[in-house]
């Protein structure tokens, strides 16, 4: 059974078709990359799939752990918020959108656990430290405020905060955007390892084809609000069928 399923998603911003009859299937444990240039509708699709933005038409269904399907956009707001705090996670391009900058690093991680009902301070702190270590942040930084962290560290802290509750599904919007190449490589390896180890499903928006190749099982290529091609990551990138995908793949600089 699919974890997330969308059919007929359409959304207009005045004259612009941001989404035009988009369908998506995501299976448990699968990483789907949405690629395409700026303005192709990738981030809008991510926001609609995660229930953060309502479509003009179409439906998104999420299958809960009991096998029950829920229409994401018909859910009451509190239920959707609970979903975002428990089964789901969202990794923003700018970690400051997700982190609380006036709360310590450990607090940022522990807060997600408390929202899920954890109450024992010692346990929460121990788990927060464990997660900081997993994302390669030194345990002695646990009481430091995020504003003393570098961009790469902030992104890793956001990932710890997101994954600490073991979500089944994570939405990622350009998680390596705006980072130095060396920091990117480290972060990508970290995401790749954690997602595989925890068996998390993910929808990843990126304009960077190399990121998609490294992390995703499957790719959907978007152009002007439509998914023009979808398939196995290596098949779409090595044998692109659609004219736009061929252009996208052939435009990448070889390092």
């Amino acid at each position, binding site marked *: 059974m699919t974890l997330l399923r969308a059919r007929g998603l359409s959304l207009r911003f005045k004259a612009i078709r941001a989404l035009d009859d988009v369908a998506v299937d995501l299976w448990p444990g699968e990483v789907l990359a949405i690629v395409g240039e700026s303005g192709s509708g990738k981030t809008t699709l991510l926001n609609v799939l995660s229930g953060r933005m309502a479509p003009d038409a179409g439906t998104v269904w999420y299958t809960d752990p009991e096998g029950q399907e829920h229409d994401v956009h018909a859910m009451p707001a509190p239920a959707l918020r609970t979903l975002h705090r428990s089964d789901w996670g969202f990794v923003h391009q700018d970690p400051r959108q997700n982190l609380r900058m006036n709360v310590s690093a450990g607090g940022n991680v522990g807060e997600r656990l408390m929202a899920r009902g954890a109450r024992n301070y010692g346990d929460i702190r121990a788990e927060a430290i464990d997660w900081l270590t997993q994302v390669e942040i030194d345990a002695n930084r646990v009481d430091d405020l995020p504003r003393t962290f570098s961009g790469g560290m902030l992104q890793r802290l956001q990932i710890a905060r997101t994954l600490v509750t073991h979500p089944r599904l994570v939405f990622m919007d350009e998680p390596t955007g705006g980072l130095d190449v060396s920091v990117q*490589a*480290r972060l*990508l390896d970290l995401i790749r390892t954690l997602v595989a180890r925890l068996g998390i499903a993910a929808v990843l928006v990126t304009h960077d084809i190399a990121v998609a190749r490294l992390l995703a099982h499957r790719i959907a290529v978007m152009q002007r609000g439509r998914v023009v091609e979808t398939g196995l990551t290596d098949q779409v990138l090595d*044998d692109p069928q659609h004219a736009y995908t*061929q252009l996208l793949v052939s435009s990448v600089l070889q390092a």
Partner: protein
Amino acid sequence: MLRTEGLAKTFTLHLRGGMQLPVLSGIDLAVSTGECVVLSGPSGAGKSTLMRSLYGNYRAEAGHIWIRHHGEMIDIAAAEPRIVLAVRRETLGYVSQFLRVVPRVSTLDIVADELITRGVAQDEARDRAGALLLRLNIPRRLHSIPPATFSGGEQQRVNLARGFIAAHPILLLDEPTASLDADNRAVVIAMVNEAKARGTAIVAICHDAEVRDAIADRLFPLSPTQEAA
């Protein structure tokens, strides 16, 4: 184990005004358990294209690619992505010519990961990976280093270790010995023959006549397709 029926592949180059490049047509290839079939033919005959199509890396345009996966025949040319991924994980291995390097991951882990993702315990996976790398003459001091800085021959041997360690029932080998010296070629020949003895079905591309004679049960000739107008 593996059988194609009427397999065809034409590349359409949209950026060249929709130019059509026919590479394969009407390919009927069958490989049995324990058999090694070597694709032969001049450069441009479509050997690599056929190999990549068998792996599902290229999308077949017509025909079927039947793979025996847990006793059931699956058509790679028509299967859903997650089925293709399951077939690759459990049945169909591929050793490409070049190692695609994952930044920061050590040589040992690159090889051991192949076992860990198949449920082998971490310690055992690392032990077996280390042993196979040593057999391919990658000294232990290199195991902890990512292979990005290795020589072409070393990278190819890391790639071979990664491809052979999971003992897939079907293996695709694209020029497995292209940049290896005589000693290492002999190791690879021995590994291929051991795999065949275990019942592995193998499709290989191999320009080196000595290696080809040592591993091939049969050649499968390919010739360049006529250019379409």
